[in-house]
C-alpha cells in the first residue's frame, strides 16, 4: 500500500512538472521570443485554456500527499516554510499576470504584466529545481521528525545546510533551463510565424546548455550526498533511467533541429519525467533523507497514513483521476492545433 501511494504521488508530481512546466516555460522565454503585441497575445492564448488546469495538478498532488503521508507533508511544509511561502506569492503574481494583462489596452499596463509573467515564471522554476535538490541532498531532521531550514547559511551542503547552497542553486538553474526548453518547444508546437521560429531557435540553442548541466548533475549529486547512488548500485537495472534521460535529450536535440515540433516536445516531456523518476528512485523508500545524526530519515512506513483510510482513498482516487483525464482530453481536443496570429482564432 505504501509503495502504491508513493507512486501515485510521484506520478501526480511528474504530471504537474510536465504540464505546468510548459506554461511556466512559456513564461520564462516569453519576453525574449514574443516581441510584438500580436506575438505576446499569441503566446498567452496558447496556454490560456490550459494553464489553470495544469496548476491544479500541484494542488491535487499536494492534497494527496497530505492525505497519504501526513508526517511528510507536515514536516516538509513547515521545514521549507519560507521558500514555500515565496512559491505561493510567485504563483499568485503569475496567475494575475496571465489573467489581468488583457483587461486593459494601455501599453504600460501590459508591459508591467509581461515583465511580471517572466519574472514570476523564472523564479518559480528556480525554486522548484532548488526544492527537488533539497530533497535529494537531505535536510537536518531533528529527533521529533521536524526541521526548519533558513533560506541560506554558508551556501554549502553539510550538517547545517540552507535552502540555497551551491548544489541546490545548480538544481534551480537546471530547472530554469529545462523548463525554458520545454516551454519554447511548446510555443514552437502551438504557434506560428516569427514567434514559432524564435521559439524553435531558443530551444535549439538552449538544449546543449541543458545537456551540460544534466551531465554535471550526476557527479554534483554524489558530491552533495555521497549515498545518493546506493539504490542504483544495489539494483544496476535502474541505470536504465539515466540512460533514458540522455536518450530523451538526444530526441529533443535532433527533433528541434528537424521540423518535428511534436516529437521535440514529447522528448522534453520525457526528459522532465525521467529526471524526476531518477531522483525519486534514488531516494526510495526514503521520502526525505536526513543529514547529520540528530534524527532519522522520513521513510514510507514512518509517514504513511492509516491503512483503512488509504484503502478508501484508492477507490475515490481512481474514479477522480479517470474523470480528470476525461476533462483533460476534452479540453485539449477542443483547443487542438496551432494558435493563429489573429486574435479570433485558435486552430481549425
Amino acid at each position, binding site marked *: 500500500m505504501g509503495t502504491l501511494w508513493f507512486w501515485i504521488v510521484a506520478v501526480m508530481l511528474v504530471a504537474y512538472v510536465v504540464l505546468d512546466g510548459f506554461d511556466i516555460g512559456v513564461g520564462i522565454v516569453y519576453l525574449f521570443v514574443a516581441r510584438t503585441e500580436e506575438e505576446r*497575445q499569441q503566446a*498567452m*492564448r496558447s496556454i*490560456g*485554456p490550459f494553464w*489553470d*488546469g495544469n*496548476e*491544479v495538478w500541484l*494542488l*491535487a498532488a499536494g*492534497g*494527496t500527499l*497530505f*492525505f*497519504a*503521508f*501526513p*508526517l511528510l*507533508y*507536515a*514536516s*516538509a*511544509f*513547515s521545514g521549507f*516554510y*519560507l521558500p514555500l511561502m515565496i512559491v*505561493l*506569492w510567485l*504563483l499568485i503574481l503569475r*496567475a*494575475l499576470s496571465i489573467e*489581468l*494583462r*488583457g*483587461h486593459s*489596452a494601455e501599453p504600460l499596463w501590459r508591459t508591467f504584466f509581461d515583465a511580471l509573467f517572466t519574472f514570476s515564471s523564472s523564479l518559480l522554476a528556480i525554486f522548484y529545481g532548488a526544492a527537488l535538490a533539497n530533497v535529494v541532498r537531505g535536510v537536518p531532521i531533528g529527533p521529533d521528525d*521536524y*526541521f*526548519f531550514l533558513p533560506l541560506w547559511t554558508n551556501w554549502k551542503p553539510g550538517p547545517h545546510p540552507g535552502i540555497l547552497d551551491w548544489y541546490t542553486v545548480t538544481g534551480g538553474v537546471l530547472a530554469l533551463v529545462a523548463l525554458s526548453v520545454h516551454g519554447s518547444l511548446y510555443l514552437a508546437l502551438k504557434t506560428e510565424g516569427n514567434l514559432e521560429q524564435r521559439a524553435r531557435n531558443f530551444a535549439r540553442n538552449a538544449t546543449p546548455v541543458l545537456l551540460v548541466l544534466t551531465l554535471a548533475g550526476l557527479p554534483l549529486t554524489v558530491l552533495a550526498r555521497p549515498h545518493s547512488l546506493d539504490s542504483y548500485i544495489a539494483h544496476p537495472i535502474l541505470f536504465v533511467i539515466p540512460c533514458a534521460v540522455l536518450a530523451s535529450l538526444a530526441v529533443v536535440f535532433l527533433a528541434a533541429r528537424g521540423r518535428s515540433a511534436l516529437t521535440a516536445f514529447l522528448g522534453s516531456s520525457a526528459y522532465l519525467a525521467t529526471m524526476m523518476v531518477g531522483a525519486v528512485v534514488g531516494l526510495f523508500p526514503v521520502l526525505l533523507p536526513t543529514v547529520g545524526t540528530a534524527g532519522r530519515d522520513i521513510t514510507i512506513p514512518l509517514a504513511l*497514513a*492509516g*491503512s*483503512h*483510510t*488509504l484503502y*478508501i482513498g484508492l477507490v*475515490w*482516487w481512481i474514479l477522480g*483521476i479517470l*474523470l*480528470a483525464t476525461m476533462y*483533460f482530453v*476534452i*479540453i485539449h481536443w*477542443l*483547443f487542438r492545433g496551432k494558435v493563429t496570429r489573429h*486574435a*479570433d482564432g*485558435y486552430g481549425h
Partner: protein
Amino acid sequence: MDALSLHRIHFAFTVTYHYLFPQLTMGLALLIVVLKSLALKTNDPKYDVAARFWARIFAVNFLLGVVTGIPMEFQFGTNWSEFSRRTGGVIGMPLAMEGIFSFFLESAFLGLFLFGEKRLSRWAHWWSAFLVFFGSWISGFFIIVTDAWMQHPVAYRALPNGVYEVTSFWAFMLNPWAWLQYAHNMCGSVVTASFVMASVGALYVLQHRDEKFGRTFLKLGVIAGVLFSVLQIFPTGDLHGRYMARHQPAAVAGMEGLFNSEKGAPLVLMGQPDIEAQKIDNPIVVNKVLSFLIYGTTAAEVEGLNQIPRDQWPSALPLLFYSYHIMAGLGTYFVLLMGIAAFLLWRGRLFTARWILWPILLSFPLPYIANTAGWMTAEIGRQPWLVYGLIRTSQGYSTHVGAGSSLFTLLGFLGMYAVLSVLWIVLVYNFIQDGPQAVSQDAPGNSNGSKTA
C-alpha cells in the same frame, strides 16, 4: 506576540480574505445558470447578454478566489504541522478530493464557459455554466466537510502513534454537522450574490442607464435574495443552532452571552459581555425566547458557561458574542429589506420606489460582513479546540516555525492582498461602468482577448 497567536492570525486573515471571493462566485454561479436557463427558455437575447456581463465579474472574483485559495491548502502544513501530522489521514481526504473532483472540473469548464460561447452550441454553453456551478458547489462541500470534522469529529479512530484515520467513508461524508453547515453556508453565498446583483440593478435603475438590464438584475436579485435570506434563518440556521447547542454547549452559551444556566433563558439582542463580572452590560433582552429557540419550549433549561470548566470556555468570548450577534442581526435585516422589495416587485412598484432602491444599492457589503461574522462564530466557538474534544489549538501549530517567520509571511500576505484589493476594485468598477452592452460574445472575461477560444 507569541508564535501560536501569530499562526492563528495568519490563518484567520488569509482564510477570511479568501472567503470574500468564493462566497460571491458560488452564489453567482447559480444565478448565472438561472440567467442561462431563462435565455434558453424565452429565447430573449437579453438574458445571454446579462449572463455575459456577470460572467466577466465572476471571472475576476474566481481568479482571486483561486490565487488566495492555494495558500490555504499549503498552510495546513506550513503553519499547522502538528495538526496536519495527526489528522492528515482524515481531513487530507476531503482536501485531496476537492482538488481531484472539483478543481479539475472547474478549471476545464470555466475556460469553455468564458470563452467558448461562439464555438459551442447554446445547450453546450449552458452545460459548461452548469458544470462550473456544480464544481464550485462540490468544492464548497469538501471544505465544509473538513471543517465539520474539526467541529464535530465522526467516523475516526486513533492509531498508536497519535494520528487519526477514517473508519467509514460514508459516515464521514454524511456527518450531520457538515450537511447543516453546508446548507446554511450555501444560502449565505447566494444571499451575497443576490445582494450584489440587486445592488448593480438598483444602480442602473437609479442612474437611468441600461434600465432594461437593471430591472432584470433587480428582479432576479430580489427574488433570490428574499428566498435565500429566509432559508438562511429558517430552517438552515435554526437547525444548525439546535444541533450546535447539543454538541457544543460552550459555544452556544458564549454566542448568546449566557453566563448562568437558566430555565426560560432570555435572548440577548444587544449588550457587552463583561467576562470578569460574568454578566452582560446594558442588555436588551427578550425573556424566555432562547429556551424556546433551542428546545421549542419556554420552560427548558439552557446550559450556561457556569456549568462548563473555565479551560473549555471559548477563548475569545466577547468576539464570539459580537460576531454571532452581527450575523444574526444582519440576517434579520436581509429578510426585512428583501421582503419589502419582493412585495413591491409583486405589486409592480419596485422600479420606481427610490426609497427602497437606495438601501438595496448600499447594502451589498452587508452579506459579506454577515458571512464573515458567521464563520467567525463557528471557528471562535470551536476554541480552545482545534478538533473539538480531541486536539487543542495550542497543540496543533508548527513549533519549529518561529514567531519571526510567521510575522514575516503575515506581513507579506497583508501587502499582497492589499494590492489584490486595489486590482479588484478597479476591475469590477470598470465592468460595472462599461455596462452589459459592452461585453462581446467571444471574450466576456477579457476586453482584448488574451485568452480567446
